């Protein structure tokens, strides 16, 4: 594809650090010149001896920093997690990710029932993702939608129902695109197409 073929040759690109992420919320980070010996002076476990005891929390300095406990904490799938799954998909035209050009936005991902309301882990959950193409005549909107769909289907458990749409008014033909993306038969047929499959697997390469 030559340069002139780009639907949008110059999209606004955000840097990776500007994207919403879970780690931003984390508290006190020390990285100044004086932090060279932090691992000795402020150790996670304040006693370095080897312990036969299977419960390490006895020696850990802060309840909320206990890594093993994070593993055991129940954290249902939330919007941020869906966003993390999607934001790293590459754009088919540019060497940037969908998150960087804000095709996928955290605010446009909705889970119902929301993570806090879910009682039974096996109940049905709707995932609605609204995409915002960089220009409203983007011919690749369907491809992007397809890739998002494939990614979610590969990553979410079977009780999640996936709905991928173009955000209202963001695309000249959003009705048609939405219809295409919502039609299971057509999605399945599209994925039989080797060229399309190639493009999509290329887009998903960056999701590691």
């Amino acid at each position: 594809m030559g340069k002139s073929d780009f639907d949008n040759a110059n999209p606004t690109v955000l840097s990776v650090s500007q994207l919403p992420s879970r780690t931003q919320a984390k508290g006190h980070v020390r990285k100044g010149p004086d932090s060279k010996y932090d691992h000795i002076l402020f150790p996670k476990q304040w006693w370095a001896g080897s312990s036969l005891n299977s419960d390490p929390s006895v020696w850990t300095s802060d309840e909320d920093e206990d890594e093993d406990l994070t593993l055991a904490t129940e954290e249902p799938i939330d919007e941020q997690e869906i966003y993390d799954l999607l934001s790293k998909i590459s754009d088919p035209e540019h060497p940037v990710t969908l998150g960087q050009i804000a095709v996928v936005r955290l605010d446009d991902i909705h889970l119902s029932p929301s993570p806090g309301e879910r009682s039974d882990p096996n109940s049905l959950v709707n995932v609605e993702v609204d995409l915002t193409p960089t220009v409203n005549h983007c011919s690749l909107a369907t491809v992007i939608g397809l890739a998002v769909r494939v990614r979610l289907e590969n990553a979410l458990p079977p009780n999640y129902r996936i709905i991928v749409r173009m955000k209202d008014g963001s695309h000249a033909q959003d009705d048609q695109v939405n219809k295409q993306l919502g039609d299971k038969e057509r999605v399945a047929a599209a994925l039989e197409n080797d060229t399309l499959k190639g493009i999509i697997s290329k887009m998903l390469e960056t999701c590691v």
Partner: protein
Amino acid sequence: MSNFKDWALQYVLSDDETAQSEIAKKAAKEIENTRASSASVGSWAASIQPWITITKQDDDNSDDDDDDSGSGDIIARAKALGFLADTLQALDKSLLRPEQVIRLVGFFGAMFSYDHKAGITASAKALRQLYAMKGFKPAVGVKMIEDVCKLKEDFKLQTAATRLEIYELFLSLIQDQSVNDELQDKYGTSSGFIVDILQLCQNERDPRNLMLWFKLLPIFLTEYSTSDEVTEEIFKAFSAYFPITLRNSATPIGITADDLKNAVRACFASHYKVTKLAFPFLIGKLDQGDAVTVSVKLDILKTVKACIEQYDNPQASIVPYINKIWNSLKYEVRNGEVKETIDATLDVLRAIANRLDGTKTQKFDISLLKNYIDIVVDDCRDDLANPTYTKQAGLLLMTVITTNIRAYTLESAAFVDIIRKNLRQPKSPSHTKDLLLLLNSTLKSRADLFKKRAEGHAEDEELLKTESSDHLVALYHDVYLPTWTGKSEETTSDVLKQVVQGLALLATQQTIRADGQISLLASRSVCSEICSLLTHTVTKGLALSQNDYSTDAAVQDEAVLALQSVVSTYTDGYAELVDRAKAEIEKRDWTAPSKHNLNALQDLLSRLAFIGCSRIPLSIALDDESPKPFRPLQHFVRLASAMLDLFPLSPLPTSEKESLANSYVISALHGSILHFRDACFEKFEPKVLEAYSGSDRNWIEEFRKLPKDWLHQLQGEEGSSEMVIKEDDPEIYRELLRISLFIVRHLYREAAYGKQAPWSERVFAQVANMAALVVRSLDENLQRSCNLAQNAFNFFFSEDLSSSGPSSLAPFRKLLILGILQGLRPAAMAELYAPQGIAETFMCDTSRMATVLLAVGEIRGTICAVLANKYKGGQNTFDPESETMKRVLNFWGEQIKTATTTDDIDPAIFEVYNTVAIHTLAGACARQDKNVLSLVPIFHEAIASPGPNGAIVARTIGGLVKTNELLTSENHAVVKRFYKQWAYTHFAKPLYDLALPTGDEDTAFAAGRYTTAILSLVSNCPFGVYQEDLPALVRLLITALNNSAASGDITQPQVATSLEVLVEILSNEPDALKSHLREIITAGMKTYEEAAKSNLTAGSKGNALARNLAAARKLTLQLLGAIPKKFEERHLLPYALPMQRMLAMASGDKSREARKVALLARENWAKVV
């Protein structure tokens, strides 16, 4: 005499080089035997007659049609000549008489006229040998050159190796002074022979030959006086190769493109008589614009630099070309984008300034340098007002001005003035930043010039003495302060960072007074103001509220670095900083501080330690004051006494969290020791410091005579009891250790005998870690003379205290013992091991065990581990019979035995016993103490015993080989290299047979226990240790997993352990699992399903169980997910579908961590189709 003929024939017929050289040696010997009589030399020369005569006809015949008929003869003829050449090589060099040499030269020289096909290689070689003969006369050398040049066009038809011989010959001759004289005499400045050689050798392309050729050419320039025409010819000969490249060759020849480039460069720079050719040529190449690649540009610039640096007589060779060079080079910087070319260009400009300044011994007239600088200033001055070019123009100016002291004193005031004027009306924030950057770079360069003043001309130092520095001092009030105070929303942190850096550079500038005394450039008041400003930036974190984000961490970090360098020269600044910080901290209540305040405190204290202690302060005078005595530890002492005053910040903490403030104070002390230690290691060699880490004095005894507030006294103006230490004296390190030990002793006594309330576990641990650092830095003698082994147990108690020892022991106070013991060297602990001595009593003390927490048991156990590890018995020790350790181990053996054969001990209490026992054994294991082996049967029996205590032993036996961070060589522990292998062999290996299921009900119980024990050991060993038992181990692992899954008991820690081991095996030797794939996959899937069913989560009481469960889930997914990467698809196909279904469910796992692993696993399995 017919020998020669035979030898010649043998030589010609032989193809083996060694055989040929043997023959040549024989011939040489023969000639030597006859003392080179004319007859023998004649017959030797005539021995090749048969090949030579035919040659001539042959050569004539085949000259035109070049057919191959004579090629056999050519080879034979070449060999025959080779025989002569080789003989000459083997011949005694002093033997041949001059007339013989002349005759032989005549013979071989003729070959260059007649025999271009066969004669050249051997002749060239022979001529080189003849040149080396004692009978060689210079006139003969001239003839050689003339003869060789007759080769003319046919030179390039010779092989590269032959040409190499000729280059070697030329090089020898040309370098020879007598031949040189002869040549000059014969040819004069017209140098016809040079022209001949140039013609002969043009078009050379072989890299190896070129290296010689480029060695030869400069000699013509430097050693021969040549006419302008000839000089130009020589210049053409090498400049034609510029810029030189080298094609990549399949067969490496040991010469790189850089070698060639350097060789050509050396030609250019060899003599200034090519100056009027070289500079226009090189600059012309540079001005070709875009056609020049970066690497060529670099080559040109480096060559120009080499010429500038090496040409003699710069007034004549360089000055005329400065304008031309400057006009071309300035664009490389002004519009340049590639860093390498910019740097190389600046190097050239610097080289010019240095060359015009003169040398260390002789300075040139200042006008040369001044004219050059004027050109640069005129061109760049206006660009500074243009934000687009500020940086580049400034870079050019600054580079030239700060090249040397003379240039600096000449022009810096004017330069600084231009920047100052521009800073008053900056065009944009980035313009301000660029201008500040230039100012800072100038200051930095000045500091560098000042430091290097002694390396230059004596005049330089005089210049510095009379240098006007007002324009620099004024920068504080004129530039930095207004920019800082006038900051607005728009001021970027980059600008502020530059200001902070500038302040530090300004405050640390040094100057030399007329009396030769070094002092700070800025006055005391300016230094003090700078310090206050920076201090305020660093300390204000405490005063801000939680929601105030106006503090920029980057600026603060910069301020920390700035203060670090400022207080190392303006030493009074640190006292100010510490006092201010101390006052700020004392103002607040630390009983129940907010998280925000705690973070601010942590930052502040950690920064204080870094600022004052990461550099050894210097002693530099201020203003007109006389210099103060050198007191390298003043900052360290100041900080330490402030911290000891502050402790405890929170006198009555009720939780670990509330004791954080106290622990930060201790961390600051610990940090200051670490930083200062680093500073010492940076200044002195580790070896040197090692010698200064000891003493045979008893410091602890000396401390008793010191007052409690000794550190306060040390701060006093005189520094009364502090030793006088010179600047380069490593004694400073010993003094650091001494004061540190004083601090440790003080804290230990406080902890043991003072008020108990402020001492939480965390603070004990902090103090212990600090003690460990100090103790392990001391050498053996000092550890012994200070009696540290005893002091570890009595917390530096001595008779001057009325009580008979520590009263109501806080349980975690044992950490203090550990702190000292872990740093001691084994030899310094010897006396502890006397029979019934402290060590034995401690290790066998079970008196309070029934009542203590398991965590306290861990600490006691670890102390035992250290004691057991550093034990040494035998002759000349306190335990001559080597009984102590044996008794201790037997004691614990008995304890284990009793506890597992009777029901006397409650499992909860036994857990503590067992912990201490296993740790003690682990310490001995690391040392491979043979006495441990006597306990093997006891342990094996204990593991299989029916009671719950046996299960505890089985589960924890891995502790014997668990890596303990306290048992390291840094801590002077005795750790044998293969001890894990050793322990595994004795404790785990015999159990495999017993652990495998037999189907027999009776043995099943014991087998289960053995499996647990094996797993416990294996999971703490590296893969290599259990590698050879893989078949049995894998079966055990699968059985264990199946059993746990079947019984629904997934929360047991051994489930996670088994999975961990399986993951380890899968990554190291997947083949071991190949035949068990079905079982592993089924067991894994089952385990995951069971683990996912459970509703246990964290937060409830079952934290540990929930953790085990989550770990089991994550590890199963990790194991299953890694399988497709290790095996071929055909082995996996049958499991793909159910696996994909299961993993799809697993990607809805409760834990986010586990979901991530599931996602990866899903991706891996999706590829199996």
